[in-house]
Every structure is written in C-alpha cells, then in structure tokens.
C-alpha cells in the first residue's frame, strides 16, 4: 500500500506518502500564493524520497478544505487528475479533520477548536472532541468572523492559524492551567496527518464513517459583485 496525500487548504503546500503503517515521505512548502508552483515538484520529491515510482502509488487522498478557494482547487484537481491518470481510487477528507488528527497524534486529548484562515477577516472553524479512540467532529465546518464564533469554542485549545491572526478573539483556554500543557498544536495542514487519518478510516472500513466526497468545501457562494477586472470580457 502506498497512499499519496495532498493538502493545499492552508499556507502549506503539503504532500506525503504513507505505506499503511507510517508516513514514508513528506514534502511541505509554506507559500500562501504559489500552490500550483510547488505542488507537483513536491509530489516528485516525495516519490524520490520514498524511492518510489508513480506506478507504485495505490491510492490518493486529498484535503477538500475548507480553505481559500484558489489554493484549495490546486490540490483537489491535482489529486483527482493524478489518480485518473493511473487509474487509482481517490478520496477526499475535510482538511480541518487532518489538523485535529495531527493534534491527536501529538497527544492532545479533550476538546479542540480548529480555526484556519478564511481571508476576508474570517476563519474556517470546527469543534472536535479527541479521546483515545480518535477524533469526533462535533460541529462545523463553518465560516465566520472569529469574534462571532460561540464563546465556549473560543476558550478551547485551538489548532490552525486562527489564534495567530485574531489573538484577541481567539484567546484559547483561560490561564488557570486547564490547557493540556506543553503539547504544541499544528498551524497548517500536514499531508502526512491527512494520509494517516485516511489510512485509519479505510482500515476501519466503517461504512457509517465514510471518507468525505471529492467536492471542495467552499462554504461560500462565488462573489459575483467583486469580480476583479481583467483583460477579458469579465465583469468589472
């Protein structure tokens, strides 16, 4: 088994190969503006690192967001096309789940808010409960201003870049020592965690807990009024 994981829903352009037991290669670049440039070289680098050829890959899993649309689509179209070219199965997973899973792998247990950058002064957010058995998404994903998320969410330990962007609105747990101390929470999605979560869910084979579809989680309608002017006969 060799699963190719891809996620471009956050600042990280992340690629990983997972052999069913562990992540055998990972290539991650941080660049919020150039997803398409780094992704394919990242896939090639991960394959080289694992000493594998494209033909050795047995399946693809791609993060379907939510995330800024332009970058998100790069990952999804790449995953779908790579899989199609080699006749492989391709799965989608909510990218916020991958962040929660990475926190779980790091040892975090209890409640967790994942809040990532949705641009336009908003965050993508979901609430999780992490226990020994794994993660449960209790609510979300939603897109919202950080300050408008419900109060008890904003006092949970928070993964994702939300708290770095909106520290006043996303303070995390009150400073009374209730935060599971010392466990660093991930800020950007790692394709390794994404692939690991997919491998576990596929192994469980629980039809009641299937992987997500392959449609991007946009959570917003296309903005028709703010279409940027272009050289074409576009609006504006």
């Amino acid at each position, binding site marked *: 088994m060799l699963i190719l994981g891809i996620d471009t829903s956050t600042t990280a352009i992340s690629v990983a190969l997972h052999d069913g037991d562990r992540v055998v290669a990972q290539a991650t670049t941080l660049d919020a503006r150039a997803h398409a440039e780094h992704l*394919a070289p990242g896939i*090639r680098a991960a394959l080289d690192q694992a000493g594998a050829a*494209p033909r050795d890959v047995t399946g693809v899993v791609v993060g379907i967001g939510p995330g800024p649309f332009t970058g998100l*689509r790069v990952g999804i179209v790449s995953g779908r096309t790579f899989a199609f*070219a080699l006749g492989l199965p391709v799965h989608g997973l909510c990218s916020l789940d991958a962040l929660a899973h990475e926190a779980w792998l790091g040892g975090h247990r209890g409640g967790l808010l994942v809040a990532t950058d949705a641009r336009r002064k908003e965050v993508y957010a979901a609430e999780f409960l992490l226990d020994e058995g794994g993660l449960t998404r209790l609510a979300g994903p939603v897109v919202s201003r950080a300050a408008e998320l419900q109060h008890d969410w904003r006092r949970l330990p928070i993964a994702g870049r939300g708290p770095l962007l909106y520290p006043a609105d996303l303070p995390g747990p009150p400073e009374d020592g209730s935060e599971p101390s010392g466990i660093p929470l991930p800020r950007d999605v790692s394709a390794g965690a994404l692939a690991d979560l997919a491998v576990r869910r596929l192994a469980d084979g629980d039809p009641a807990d299937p992987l997500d579809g392959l449609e*991007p989680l946009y959570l917003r309608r296309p903005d*028709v009024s703010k279409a*940027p002017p*272009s050289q074409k006969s576009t609006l504006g």
Partner: protein
Amino acid sequence: MTDEPLVLGIETSCDETGVGIVRGETLLVDTVASSVEEHARFGGVVPEVASRAHLEAMVPTIERACREAGVSLRDLDAIAVTSGPGLAGSLLVGVAAAKALAVALDRPIYGVNHLASHVAVDIVEHGPLPEPTMAMLVSGGHSSLLLVPDVTNDVRSLGSTMDDAAGEAFDKVARVLGLPFPGGPHIDRAAREGDRIAIDFPRGLTSRRDLERHRFDFSFSGLKTAVARWVEMRHRDGEAVPVADVAASFQEAVVDVLTRKAVLACKDNGVDHLLIGGGVAANSRLRALAEERCTKAGIALRVPRPGLCTDNGAMVAALGAQMVAKGREPSDLGLPTDSSMPVQLVQS
C-alpha cells in the same frame, strides 16, 4: 507516421475547459466544456464561477478526449497547457491538472502562451505555417498584429489595441443593443439583416497622423461610445432603435479597420500570408472582407474554422506538438502561471 509527437493540450484561461489531442500536425480530438451559460445572466465572465466549473469539468473532459480519440494517456509524448495570459484562478486549475498528468505519467510539460496557441491552431487546420507568417489575433481580451517568424519561439508584436479588444467591443455594444452575452455571435447574426453603411461610425486610429504614430495599433473604445451615444439619442427622441442597422454599421467599422491594418502590415513587411485567429475571427463579415482585401492585395488568407477560433484545447496541443517536433526544451515542473503573460513570451 507514428513517430510524430502525440500531445495532449489543456486550456483553462477563461470560461472554457478545453482538452485537445494532436499527433504531429493532425488533430485527433477537440473537447470543450463551457461555463458560458452560467455567466450569461451576469453579463460577463465571473472568475470564481469559471474556476469552480473548471475544477468540475477537468477530469471528465480529459477522459472524454481520450475516449473519443481512442488514445490512452500512457501513449502521450508530452503535455501542453496554457500558462497565460488569462484569469489567474482559471489558469491555475489547468496548469495544476497538467502538472499532475506530467508527474503521474512521467512526461515533459510545456507551459505555453494562449495567444501563440490561437495562431498555432491553424497548423492542424491548414498545415505548416509559412515563416514568417503575419497573424492578426482578435479575441475577447486581445487585438494584435503579430509578425511570427517561428510560432514556437519568435512572436513579435507590431501593434495592439490601446483600449478595448475587438471582442470586448462586440460584447459591450451587444449589451447596449440588448443582445445576450457573449455578444459577438449575436451581432454577427443581427447584422446580416442590416445595412452596413446606414450609420457612419468612427474608424479608430486611421487618420494620416495616427497611421504614422499608431500604424498597427487599434482603438475601439471611441467606437463603442459613439454607438452608445447614437442609441441613446434614439431613445431620447422616442424612436425605435434599428438594431440590425446599428449592428451591421458597428461591425463594419470594426472589421474595416482590422482588415485595412492587417493588409498594411503584410505589405510593409513583405509577407504574403495572413492568418486570423481568436474568437472574433469567427465573424462572418470579417472573414468575407479579409478575403476580399487579401485577394486584391495578392495575400493568401488563412482562418481556422470557427470552432477552432474560440478557446479550445486543440490549439494548445497544436503548439505543444510543434515544440516537441522542433526539439524545444520542456518547461520546468515548477512553472508558474502568468495572468498577464506578454505575447512575445511563447513559453514559460
């Protein structure tokens, strides 16, 4: 000849998801999925709507192209893709898909200029391009006169529009006349019933002075304004607007200037071949007047069939196949998209 390169081309610079497959100079398939109907109610292409549609159409369009051509992806020699110019978000979907194919199949990738592709597509229609070729590119985003010594690496701009592109002028005037988007084909149709000398609309940049300073440049925004003002006056006077006459007279003003300058460019540069490409090349009056004026001037005219004038994947595959055949270096896998890629830059 089976040793000719088999190339798949992907085009997503605007609202058409195009996938074409070419072997050497032979077109095997040209598959296009368009989101134009989703944009029509907004009166223009909405970039985010176009990008979403590209994502959904990408794999099905590749699949359909392969099936209809009876080609297996494994047989491909190279992938070609439009890397610019165009809508940034749209370009990214095509370029990412092309790169994924290139990595999965371990094939070279060529990131090519959309405008050079509009020229190169005629190779699969009418055979090799004479070198140099004079090309007039008239589309929704561009109006340029190009001297093309080698479409794979030497495209020179002699002049271009200083404001609106020809297709843009068609689309805007159509809106003034209450015709649907995109307006070009509707004006073309309406004009057939109209009188093209009914109204004397201005011919931009054709005065003696302009022919010195802006010999091969175009300007259509004054024309657009003149049409709008003329229609407005009619409304104000409570008179019906003779849509067919306005369409025909406007269209005549555009194609008169285009063909006049194209022939002039051929003469000035001693080139006896003119190629017209881009969406506006589908215009029936442009084709007719160009034919008439070229014949008179002893210039051989080439215009691809209308389906190959608008955006499509075959044009990208056609240019890619030329690059492979001429031994051009492929692009780097890290190639960027360039939404304002200059016409002189054939490859990224």
